[in-house]
């Protein structure tokens, strides 16, 4: 069955054009060095990146994590692969393939590093054999598993054609041939004092066997072994290398075959296969990273992303970086919901300090970034807008180098952001302009928000200035909450409610016996 997809061409044609499992088109592979987006540090996405990808540094996965996708089809393309990877019959062969390719790379490293040229050649033969076995196994497994995602179906079709191609079959056959020729070599090693010589084997009988046969008649039962243990490092010592060189000279023909094989197949590794090996690690790493959280009962959802509507609804979301730490320490994770419907565009979040507001801000940013990567996001369900860019405006430490004051610095930064941002961007501001008087903060904050509202940008503004929450009907007021019975206890739940300003401060004062009424009563008693 074939159908036309938005990317153009029939499925068959798509599968023929298969290039990548992370990108539906024919985008080139990103390099190893791509700078982190500015907002990574603020949103703790850098922590997530380290935790998830540092152990796989040889694959250079950071660039994939840094670059969000901008169209919903590309997001869907990747999500489908992640869904496929949830099934054992796809997951397991993919991981086996990855392990085999890691072995192949190790062998390729020997093929480059070792001193003896004959060893280098042997390791290249070995690496290519491992490679061939891995590709063959994966092709077979994918054909059997029948993946649902276009990406893996495309990969499967590509591999099937590849392993049936004349080039691949010749690679395998020649490899088998050379391996068998080398395995068949039996040379003789003659050692007289310090004189070593190598020759061909003339079928002389094995003395150990002869000793066994001669004394077999005395055997009463099993006896222990008297074998010595010899070290077997991969590299040969200089004497062993010389022996090998002599063997190569005596078995000239066989070693020539090896040399020819290496020249012919030096660059035999298929770039698309190598690219898949790298890209799939991105998805496997993320799966591995979220697995302990899932095991602890936290939900992850494949978000529905849209570019034509800014309405959003997310349930039971959480800050992924924080949750990783909490789950590892066996502590509970508080989840939160948020909704934007109709004309709503801006969330203004006020409330008691240390109440989880910054965490909420990070969660919101992370969820949007992860959604744009085509990955499942922290939460039970997620309908999200796919922004063209994400901007953060968090409090920064005062820079000693800058000639500006902290406040001026912030204004400068927000100006830069608003200059670059479009109506489809997402802006997250955390305690912006708090390093000045309330009046200034209110006025500047109001002006910034008006620009944001004019452009219909999605925005979260964490602040202590209640007035901003009442700016327009497109602004939603959220508050961090405390336990009604004990105002010193934070719930870390963020709820929709009108900003009630000083109410918390008053409650707090009461708890410590410092309210006006309480003090007056005490002092005049």
């Amino acid at each position, binding site marked *: 069955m074939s159908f036309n997809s938005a990317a153009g061409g029939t499925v068959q044609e798509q599968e023929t054009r298969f290039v990548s499992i992370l990108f539906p088109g024919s985008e080139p592979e990103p390099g190893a060095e791509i700078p982190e987006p500015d907002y990574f540090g603020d949103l703790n996405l850098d922590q997530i990146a380290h935790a998830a990808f540092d152990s796989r540094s040889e694959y250079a996965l950071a660039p994939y994590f840094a670059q969000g996708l901008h169209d919903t089809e590309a997001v869907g393309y990747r999500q489908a692969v992640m869904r496929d990877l949830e099934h054992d019959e796809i997951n397991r062969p993919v991981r086996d393939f990855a392990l085999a390719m890691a072995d192949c790379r190790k062998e390729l490293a*020997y093929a480059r590093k070792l001193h003896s040229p*004959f*060893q280098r*050649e*042997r390791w290249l033969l*070995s690496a290519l054999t491992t490679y061939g076995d891995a590709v063959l196994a994966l092709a077979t497994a994918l054909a059997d598993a029948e993946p649902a995602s276009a990406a893996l179906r495309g990969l499967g079709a590509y591999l099937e054609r590849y392993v049936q191609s004349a080039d691949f079959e010749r690679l395998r056959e020649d490899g088998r041939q050379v391996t068998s020729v*080398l*395995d068949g*070599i*039996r*040379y*003789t*090693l*003659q*050692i*007289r*004092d*310090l*004189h*070593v*010589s*190598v*020759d*061909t*084997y003339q079928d*002389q*009988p*094995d*003395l*150990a*066997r*002869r*000793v*066994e046969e*001669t*004394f077999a*008649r*005395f*055997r*009463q*039962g099993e*006896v*222990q*072994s*008297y*074998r*010595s243990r*010899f070290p*077997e490092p991969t590299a*040969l*010592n*200089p*004497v*062993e290398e*010389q*022996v*090998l060189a*002599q*063997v190569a000279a*005596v078995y000239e023909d066989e070693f020539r075959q090896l040399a020819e094989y290496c020249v012919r197949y030096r660059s035999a590794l298929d770039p698309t296969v190598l690219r898949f090996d790298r890209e799939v690690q991105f998805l496997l790493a993320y799966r591995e990273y979220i697995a302990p959280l899932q095991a602890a009962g936290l939900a992850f959802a494949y978000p529905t992303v849209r570019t034509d509507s800014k309405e959003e609804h997310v349930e039971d979301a959480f800050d992924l970086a924080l949750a990783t730490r909490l789950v590892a320490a066996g502590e509970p994770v508080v989840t939160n919901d948020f909704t934007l419907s109709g004309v709503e565009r801006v969330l203004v979040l006020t409330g008691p300090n240390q109440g989880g507001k910054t965490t909420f801000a990070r969660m919101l940013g992370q969820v949007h970034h992860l959604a744009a990567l085509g990955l499942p996001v922290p939460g039970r369900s997620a309908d999200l807008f796919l922004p063209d860019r994400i901007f953060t405006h968090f409090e920064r430490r005062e820079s000693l180098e800058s000639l500006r004051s902290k406040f001026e610095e912030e204004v400068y930064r927000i100006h830069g952001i608003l200059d670059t941002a479009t109506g489809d961007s997402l802006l997250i501001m955390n305690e912006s302009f708090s390093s000045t008087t309330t009046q200034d903060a209110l006025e500047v904050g109001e002006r910034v928000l008006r620009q944001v509202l004019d452009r219909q940008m999605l925005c979260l503004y964490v602040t202590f200035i209640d007035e901003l929450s009442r700016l327009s009907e497109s602004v939603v007021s959220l508050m961090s909450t405390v336990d009604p019975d004990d105002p010193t206890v934070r719930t870390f739940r963020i709820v929709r409610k009108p900003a009630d300003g000083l109410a918390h401060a008053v409650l707090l004062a009461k708890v410590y016996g410092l309210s006006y009424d309480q003090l007056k009563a005490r002092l005049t008693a």
Partner: protein
Amino acid sequence: MKVNLMHPDAAFDAYAELPPKADELITDLELQTLLDVMAGDDPLIEQVARTALLRGLTDPELIAYRQAALTDALAQPQAIRTLYGIATAALHDERQQWGLSYASAHSILARSLTVIELFVKRLRQLRQVGEQFGSGFHSQAFTDLFATLERECPESYFDEIAEVTGLLQDKRGTLAAVRLGSSNRGYDYLLLQALPQRWLDRVGVLHRHRASFQISDRDEAGARAVAELADRSLDPAANATAQAVQHVVGFMHSLQAELAFYVGCLNLHDELETLGLPTCMPVACEPYRQELTATDLYDVCLALHSREPVVTNDVDAPGAALLLVTGTNRGGKSTFLRSVGLAQLMLQAGMFAGASAFTANVRNGVFTHFKRAEDPSMHVGKLAEELERMHDIVKLIGPESMLLCNESFASTNEREGSEISRQLISALIDSGVKVLFVTHLYELAHGFYEQQRPDIAFLRAAPPSANGEPTFKLAPGEPEPTSHGLVAYERVFGAAA
């Protein structure tokens, strides 16, 4: 090459686990005296003898097999002792050569070759004993052994060994066949030949391709690497040779252990002969029909210990499942009990017995219930202690076992003791156990006497002779209510008066 001197088709395990309650049996029958005489000061003989006596054979045919071998040994003691000496010397030779466990292939091979040379000498000696004395042996065990030695260790075989070891003598070189492994590293070394000196003097005219190089003698690391290659070359052959040595060691151990039994018997026989006491090859009967007949039966351990003439007894109790022994104190009852127990063990070990004739059916376990010292902690009363011990025995005893009881349950009054004993004994003998019961419990003995059962026999210790000296003789007789205690009283008091 199997030894098979103790059993037609199995090796004798000198260190097999002894049955439960073996320690008590040894104590109660004073077996250690017997073992000491058999062993002399050879701990191996003691071990072998202990195992043979306590793990007796239960098949009369297997007993006959061993008895035949023993008959041969008794007729040719010199040959037996010589064979034993050779096996012992061979093992001593091997132990002398013992080097470090983690030696190189080179030294393992050298050491093994030395031992093989010594072993060849010993094997030849063994064969020559057979050549010299073989005609005087008639048992299947020994004729098979000598035939094996002749067949498997002729001079031509030793020549073959010499040829193979000649090829292994590592004078200054090695030649090995090697394959290429995964890293083009050599593996699977097969030693083809170690080159003797004269070979080295010939330039390699036979080689076609010869590629070679030389390590400078100032290159220490290089020299070490070459030595390692030589060791790799020697390794499998060194292993095979060392294992071959162990195979011969195994054979020698087997031979030594099984001969030890016969040497021990020879020692014992010599001693009993010196004391002027009779021995005989006892007759073993099938287990299911009770048999007990003996002429001139005596307590071997007592004889060995006291080194004085001992009293002998005759027994004629075919078909008896229970033998009740009553009579005078110090009448020789305990001694008699022990003499039967010992004879049973020796019969089933394939040894001769301390009698001029002894016939019994085989048993698959011998248990003793003799008097014990009172528990010093007084936690357990004497009767309770006896009952508990009997309980332990009953857990282990089977229908084809034998139980020897010496004054059991005398620690309570006669009525109670008799009843306990009656129930116990009846149950045991009705199940096929053979019981010998020495007792003062008149009610018990009399009760059984009245039953007039054909499978119960009664022996009575004779009263002291006129001058008060005990006779230690037993004879068939009805149990008497008295043990002649009054006689003892009158003798003592009469003498004092």
